[in-house]
């Protein structure tokens, strides 16, 4: 079994805003594209044009319907990838040391040349964030684009994960969650960012910003009508309205 580092210098991770994620899957495919061409073996696809296409993805978007006690049902889009946990059970379960957490930044990676494809880490991960590549026989997972974020061949502005760079609705943010003054930490503080499944004790680094309360206008409408004064009639019939208009125009 593999040891975690006692501490990491940074806690790099993602902050995902469930209030603005429209469920477009841009992050999913951008990730697929970058990581097929880059880090390690390509993300393969089995039966890609057939009855049961099934490929390796490091990031997926799930959609859940929520029925509040009162009001209309809602649909929440929920992107999910490795959360780069501080107490990553996928690392400690690895029999070969292939799974590891980086000291510099806390990124959890798989060293594919040491991976024997036993799949224990995928069993250990409570989030289902690891996928065995069927062609390579090696475990694949989110690398937080470790080959982008420090890459001197990329312009500085592009040194962020592919999913963050591509997200059209700006629902994905990248930074050091170990630094309370970082933009991402401030965002988490401001918006009440949450751990995913904290009861698992994995101490995930990635954070989720909850959706804002919805359908407030409908709820307000059912209670006191604070907006009613905005629709106070000036007249109830066309003739009266035109008299009102005449008077109003004089004031203009």
């Amino acid at each position, binding site marked *: 079994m593999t040891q975690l580092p006692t501490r990491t210098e940074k806690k790099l991770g993602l902050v995902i805003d469930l209030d603005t994620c429209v469920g*477009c899957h841009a992050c999913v495919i951008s990730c697929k594209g970058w990581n097929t*061409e880059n880090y390690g073996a390509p993300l393969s*696809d089995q*039966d890609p044009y057939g009855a049961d296409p099934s*490929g390796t993805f490091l990031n997926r978007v799930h959609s859940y319907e929520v029925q509040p006690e009162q009001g209309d*049902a809602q649909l929440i889009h929920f992107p999910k990838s490795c959360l780069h946990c501080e107490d990553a059970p996928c690392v400690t379960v690895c029999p070969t040391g292939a799974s590891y957490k*980086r000291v510099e930044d806390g990124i959890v990676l798989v060293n594919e040349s040491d991976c024997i494809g036993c799949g224990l880490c995928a069993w250990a991960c409570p989030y289902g964030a690891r996928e065995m590549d069927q062609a390579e026989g090696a475990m694949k997972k989110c690398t937080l684009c*470790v080959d982008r974020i420090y890459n001197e061949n990329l312009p500085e502005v592009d040194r962020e994960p592919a999913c963050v760079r591509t997200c059209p609705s700006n629902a994905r943010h990248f930074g050091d969650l170990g630094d309370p003054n970082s933009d991402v930490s401030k965002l988490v503080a401001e918006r009440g960012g949450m751990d995913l499944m904290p009861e698992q004790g994995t101490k995930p680094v990635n954070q989720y910003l909850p959706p804002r309360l919805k359908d407030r206008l409908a709820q307000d409408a059912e209670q006191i*009508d604070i907006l009613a004064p905005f*629709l106070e009639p000036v007249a109830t019939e066309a003739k009266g309205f035109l008299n009102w208009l005449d008077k109003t125009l004089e004031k203009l």
Partner: protein
Amino acid sequence: MTHKQPKLDLSPKVSDEIRKTTCYMCACRCGINVHMKKDPLGDLKVAYIEGNRDHPVNQGVLCAKGSAGIMQHNAPSRLSSPMKRVGKRGEGKFEHISWDEAYDIAESWLRPIRESNPEKLAFFTGRDQSQSFTSMFAQSFGTPNYAAHGGFCSVNMAAAGIYTMGGAFWEFGQPDWDHTKLFMLFGVAEDHDSNPIKMGIGKIKARGARVIGVNPIRTGYNAVADDWVGITPGTDGLFILSMIHCLMKAGKMDLNYLAQYTDAAVLINGDEKSPEYGLKLRDENGKELVIDRTTGKLTPYDQKGVKPDLAATHREAGITHRPVFHQMAEMYLDEQYAPEAVAERCGISAKRIRTLAAELARVAFEESFELAHEWTDFRGEHHTTMTGRPVSFHAMRGISAHANGFQTCRALHTLQIILGTVEVPGGFRFKPPYPKPATAHPKPHCKVTPNAPLDGPHLGFVHGPDDLALKDDGTPARIDKAFTWENPMSAHGLMHMVISNAYAGDPYKIDTLFMYMANMSWNSSMNTTGVQDMLTDTDESGEYVIPRIIYSDAYSSEMVAYADLILPDTTYLERHDCISLLDRPICEADAVADAIRWPVVEPDRNVKGFQSALCDLGARLGLPAFTNDDGSQKYADYADYIVNHERRPGVGPLAGWRMGENGLQGGRGGVNASQLDNYIANGGFYVEHIPDGANYYKPWNADYQDWAVKMGLYDSPQPYLFSLYAEPMRKFQLAAEGHGDRQPPDHLRQRIKEKMSPLPIWYETDQQGNEGFTITALTQRPMAMYHSWGSQNAWLRQLHGRNPMYMPTNLMREHDLKDGDWAEVTSPHGTITVPVMEMAALNPNTIWTWNAIGKRKGAWALDKDAPEATKGFLLNHLIHELLPPKGDGLRWANSDPITGQAAWFDLKVAIKKTAQPADAQSQPNMPPINSPVASAPDELKWKVGK
């Protein structure tokens, strides 16, 4: 194991070269960086695609489709060579031929048509982004039968916008994302204006602005909306008019805006006996007349210092002429539009309608603000600030694809205008070349002369019966019956009627159907099975009823099997294109912009960009636009056209880097032989910003008007008033009332009188035949798919490979259905048997599915047992292009009676639980077509570099 870290290369080489071009995975047209890497053989290959940060449309972001472009470019469904049909139509049996042979065949069909009767060619171009070019081919050929797919897409939205305010939603305008505080979107399918809307929503939600989604389905943008209004489909117009009722009644209108910038104060002829009854009073120069509030006198609206009076009437010769605003007050204050009167039909409580109207009023008037931009209006009045009204709207096909869609779209624009939120800070803004009034657009042309071009552009904006496309005997000049009494204002044509009309010989038979990027034997047609029959049916002599079909596509779509001659197109990374100001541009509200595509890789197949093929074919046919004076070919290929064509002196397909007196310049200018290189060096696009102070109030802003002339958008300033009152519609009503020489047929008189109201109305769509069918059935495309193209994409089809029929909880319970059960869904026209799935966030009387996931077996290089072909289905089988027969022997189109827009969303169905079909496949289950391409690989391990 103790902790051990391998040494990583944190700065691997990303690519050998980045080539910047324009995406074509949908109509959004984002800028992309195509990373090229050398493969082991040393050839540069496409390795990775990302958004271009400098590009005005997407500013670096890219959607799932865009990032999956690499799979589209390498799809096994790509056609590889010209082909001629060797089996029966619909079988999919072809023989590969050379381009020379393909051109010979096409020429042998088209030349005799042009020499005898050019109308026998119907040339329709689907999802074409080069309409200013393809229309030039059709015009030069001389056929009146040309259009693209607007008629079955969203012409109601485009036409209503342009007739009302000289610009429209979709790519012609955008909310002022930087200032808006309330954004209300109606009927926007998830795929539309893909990245800009997502970016905008992200931006305004980060600021705490409110998003209100009006849509029967709560997915996508509506899922993140702060408030969701799950309206009953087809009643948006009624809901909007009810909010207008509330706002007018409360005096919550921008009266200054209405008086200064709209026709609200323009006087309407009140003489019931006059042939001009209901038309606008005008002076001898045709200028609309108003009463000036300062002098009390009648005056043209645009004179210096004039303050148009919304209240004053004009009495002359015993007749009182009232302004438009009087008629609006009379119409919309009526209690028929009171929230209580409409609530049940709309499926929205009266209280909620009032709350929404009140919120619009609150934000528009209580949160208004001033921007410190000085500007001068067209009357010469100087303003020290610009007033902002931070309420913005966007709408799309959900409200327009109904037979009452045009009036609904007009109603929405009326709502925007009375709130004073168009072209102001915080509101909805036009993108150049808009604003542009309907009167500044061409009118339709249809005069056919053998061996000669058509007398002008095919499509345009009619302003009365004189502009209709009718032959001398009054019959329709066009095969799709666009611009006829059946749908007078059909600005984009009616592509969905072409095959049906050609088959019926109504209004006449054609000889050759020539189509591009239009999957008419599948998801782009109503009545898919019927259309397949029309394409394959033969007459008594054994000839096909539609004798010849030429089709161009890059992929093995369902339509390929139904064509006689195939011209294989390239992928979007292998071609030249221009995203032109003459066509559907990519401008921003603050900037004029256009872009190119260029071959970032050369095709490895015997294929050719369709537009380049038209350059060859046009020259072979001797079309004037495609030949030099000596008869030689004018444009070697599309790139040659893009650079060297001039539509008007100094105005070409591309506005960037034109040759000026002092070197290269944007806007107007002469041909620059290196223009494409200039574009490539700049990342594939050109952008030039509108000066501060000219960038709002554009229709009335003297600085903007002058800038637009300088840029070549207009040839002279074109200030105008918004048309709350659509005078062209009143002209058609007058004809229906018996005025004028051009008279509608009697069976259409009543409909024209009722539906062509010059002020927006709402009416229930034609429900004849719908007895017993009470549930509305809709489709939309997912954000990660576009039309039918997504299904061939190995990555995207893993996201959306199935399309169950989503049903609301109440209907699931009522019919004892569980997820995975099967149901028969029946319309007056047909039945499909499909798997169902529950969705709670849905209007309780609406069911829906993803459009165009369902595939024909054998198409798109998919296996015959792909879920798209076994479980997937099309709603199109339930929708007829005609309304049920009325017993009068006439063919009534299932279209908007004003514009001819296909009324996809008027579909009404009944549902019934049923057993899973014996073959466990959706019904109808069509037999496979032969695939004209090789079979696909069973595994992908895509990696170009080492």
